[in-house]
């Protein structure tokens, strides 16, 4: 069993879609390939489907120029062994309970029968995941998660009572756009807009684990919202500009660790150093700053000024500790 197989491939998937109807036409074939294929698929797939010298023969041309499939039925959407085995493994994941009740999990388990799970959780270990993950066994958490998920799906307006990251009790009327999961924090959050008098007042993120009450008001937020605009509203106004040196495999380590961020990189081919512009959510600025500092002198924060100043202040404080601490004498002795 291998997921790298043509049966899961984009070409087979597009072909299956086109075979759903008994009759189609060249225009639909090309449009579907354009829409669902890779950038160059239009150069390769249509000729396999449209009758001609390179055709596989899955369609034949009718008298009125349409394309008729040679199969009798619409293609079946089969689950393969590896897909079922993956599903079986997920049923043992505590997070499955966020979605399904025990009876559904049992029924699905039974349906999958003696299919072995693709993996067991203990075969993996997260080396640096934070310890205060959400409690996926907690009934109240599950209930809050499900209400939030429903609200995202229906775009319904919800009342939420929660404790903020600074420990303050907050409440308000919100519309939830999407749910976010972080494998580092092992937590779920909801992207939301705070509403006042039925209008968007500000954007925010609420940790599901910090919600003390969430109630669906029964009303739906009908104003169109764009997730791009939401992200734009939270994005830093200026990117962090970082000089990354080659010392201690700095480039490789930095690029790998910051791979998740939108960035623009320029390399100086003479020195091998990179200058990276890094965009981040303004709320995450401290997280970005401390992660940058952890690279020590291998990188330098060139800007913006306020970020560099924050780094400078922390370094100055640390420098003072070093000057005055036992570390200095320990080193002198060694």
């Amino acid at each position: 069993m291998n997921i790298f197989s043509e049966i899961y491939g984009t070409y087979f998937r597009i072909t299956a879609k086109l075979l759903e109807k008994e009759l189609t036409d060249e225009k639909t074939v090309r449009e579907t390939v354009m829409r669902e294929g890779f950038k160059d698929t239009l150069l390769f797939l249509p000729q396999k489907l449209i009758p001609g010298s390179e055709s596989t023969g899955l369609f034949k041309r009718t008298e009125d120029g349409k394309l008729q499939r040679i199969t009798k039925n619409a293609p079946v959407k089969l689950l393969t062994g590896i897909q079922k085995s993956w599903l079986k493994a997920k049923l043992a994941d505590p997070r499955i309970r966020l979605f399904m009740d025990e009876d559904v999990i049992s029924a699905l388990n039974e349906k999958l029968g003696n299919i072995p799970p693709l993996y067991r959780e203990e075969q993996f270990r997260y080396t640096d995941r934070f310890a205060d993950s959400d409690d996926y066994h907690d009934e109240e958490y599950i209930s809050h998660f499900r209400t939030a998920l429903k609200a995202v799906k229906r775009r319904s307006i919800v009342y939420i009572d929660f404790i903020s990251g600074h420990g303050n009790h907050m409440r308000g009327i919100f519309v939830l756009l999407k749910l976010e999961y972080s494998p580092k924090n092992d937590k779920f959050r909801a992207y939301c807009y705070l509403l006042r008098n039925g209008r968007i007042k500000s954007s925010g993120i609420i940790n599901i684990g910090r919600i003390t009450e969430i109630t669906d008001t029964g009303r739906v937020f009908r104003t169109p919202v764009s997730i791009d605009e939401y992200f734009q509203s939270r994005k830093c106004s200026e990117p962090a500009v970082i000089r990354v040196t080659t010392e201690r495999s700095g480039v490789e380590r930095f690029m790998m660790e910051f791979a998740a961020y939108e960035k623009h990189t320029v390399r100086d081919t003479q020195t091998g150093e990179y200058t990276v512009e890094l965009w981040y959510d303004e709320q995450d600025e401290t997280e970005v700053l401390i992660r940058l500092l952890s690279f020590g002198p291998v990188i330098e924060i060139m800007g913006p000024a306020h970020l560099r100043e924050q780094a400078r202040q922390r370094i100055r404080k640390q420098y003072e500790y070093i000057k005055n601490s036992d570390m200095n004498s320990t080193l002198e002795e060694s």
Partner: protein
Amino acid sequence: MAGFSELIKNFGKTRDYIRDFFIYGCKVRSDFDRKSLRTYSDEKRRVESWMGDYMRYDDSVHGRSVSISVDSGHIPENPLYNAFYSKSFTDNDMLLHFLLTDILSDGEYRALKDIVDELNSEYSMLFDEQTVRNKLKEYTQEGLVLSEKRGKTLYYSLCGDRADEYISHFEVLDDALKYFSEVQHFGVIGNSILKTAGMDNDLFFIKHNYIIHTLEDILIPEILSGMEEKRYITLQTFSAKKRSDSDDNGREAQVVPMQILVSVQTGRQYLAAYIPAVKRFSSFRLDYIKTIKKSTVCENYDELKAKYEKNISRCFGVSFGTRRETGTVTPMKITFCVDEDKEPYIIERLNREKRCCTLEKIEENLYTLTADVFDPNEIMHWAKTFIGRIVNIEGGTSDIIQRFYNDIIRMEEMYGGDSDEHIQ
């Protein structure tokens, strides 16, 4: 570019290229010196074809640089899954796939001969028995087709499990699929189920999302299978320094696989394994592993696993240390200064991020973290996130403290501090 195809036969080669584009962010054609320019152009075109909008071009004096820029926290689907969906195939593969599933979709069992006859009579397609037999055998292994022996003859039927029926029958399975298709482990498989059912993830985004991990999903099943069967496995690896060497065929190592170690902060994944040749545990970066091959059964697997469990509990990250070189290290103690009234969140941070270390309050506003780990070096990258709070470090090795000390002096100079002769 005659002969170009956006589909691929060999995932390994492509994995290497995507990784370079993705990680380094910018590459110019001349950097890809380990392969011919023709190969470079083909690989680049393929990556462009799969990645679509995520490719970014910058003209520089050194040539056009190509990069993949993805804000992976704000995308509904990992674009690198496309590499998995690009396996090349023959026309016969395609034809047989749709015809065999069409013939067998009624759930009836048929003998090979009847299937071949039906291909001819109902679809006017002539196939020899061997070709059809091979395809049916392959599909039986993939779990698409069921086979049953009646007398001396094998009969085939289509497996009854269908993605759309599962989704409509099991409430909220679709939501679960949307979530699990974007997270570890093997999200690509969940995504393939969604695709089969004609659905997309429209509910979840993933923060701290290392989408590159998916490229290693190609190796992991074989490793897991090695673990299950308690076997040795043979790894072919390439070292970071030799990556640009086109003649580098890598090194082979025979190891006993123990666990996959996933870092959710550095973007790296490792195989933790026992190396019989040197009688110690070690971790191998998965992105530096080319191939995995299962070998013979390891008779003392359980004994090694028990030892591993003991050892891994003393790793801060993935390093089992190099005791033979450094000798025994004393536990490392790092003392942090925290304003308890104004900064309770720092204490929370220490607690949630300390891993196997212990944290104790030693006096008002001072907290000491004790790390009795194999390789104290690993702690320092993390400890530096607390720059501005570290009042003391003791234990570990003097090299570690020296480096930290030097780093702070260099940073102080770098960020505009005054030089101070007192600590030079």
